[in-house]
């Protein structure tokens, strides 16, 4: 019947499909191993960075060297791996323009609120009563918290890799 899947002609075809699946699986494993190695290296970089004296030239140089490496890696990756356009499920309804405007306005309001709170806290003292985002982050990933700091460093570097890579084209 038309539309029915045709049975595989021979065991040779089955072997070809099997080999293709195996190659795909090993490719995925290699990619996962590389990603894992990359995250471990970044965590180690974060651990090294946490051992450097804050406010020093060495910590600034180290951070910017890692950042330069990440940006270079992102550029190379997006050049070598052009990326497959992601399939987007067809929308049943077209986006409403008025709702989109309300959404953008809401995001602008949220951003303004965060900025206003930051400025309010920044120009008031003492810092223990008026915490800024930096002082809050310092409580969690300050120089004393070496493990948390290395995790945060790895997360920051991964964000940089995502930002520096050229965005994938969508159909």
């Amino acid at each position, binding site marked *: 019947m038309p539309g029915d899947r045709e049975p595989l002609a021979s065991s040779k075809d089955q072997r070809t499909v099997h080999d293709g699946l195996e190659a795909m699986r090993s490719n995925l494993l290699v990619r996962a191993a590389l990603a894992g190695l990359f995250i471990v290296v970044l965590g180690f970089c974060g651990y090294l960075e946490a051992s450097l004296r804050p406010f020093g030239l060495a910590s600034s140089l180290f951070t910017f060297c890692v950042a330069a490496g990440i940006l270079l890696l992102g550029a190379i990756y997006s050049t070598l791996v052009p990326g497959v356009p992601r399939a987007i499920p067809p929308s049943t309804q077209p986006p*409403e323009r008025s709702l989109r405007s309300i959404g953008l306005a809401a995001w602008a309001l949220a951003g303004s609120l965060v900025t206003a709170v930051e400025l309010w806290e920044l120009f008031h003292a003492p810092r223990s009563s008026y915490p800024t985002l930096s002082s809050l982050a310092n409580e969690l990933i300050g120089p004393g918290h070496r493990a948390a700091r290395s995790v945060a460093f790895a997360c920051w570097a991964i964000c940089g890799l995502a*930002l520096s890579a050229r965005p994938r084209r969508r159909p």
Partner: protein
Amino acid sequence: MNVALWVLAALVVACCEVAARSLGRSWPTAAQLVRSGRANLAGRLILVISWLWLGWHVFAR
């Protein structure tokens, strides 16, 4: 530590994200805003400079 204002700001941001995810494509999510910023060179440059500043501010300064 007085974090009430920060909790309020975080709630507003979370409400925006929840509204975006429940209302579908019309209301943009935070990720869609960043993606539209990355769509052109100027936006990408601003994002990368902000990322560099954040790293310097948090880890080096």
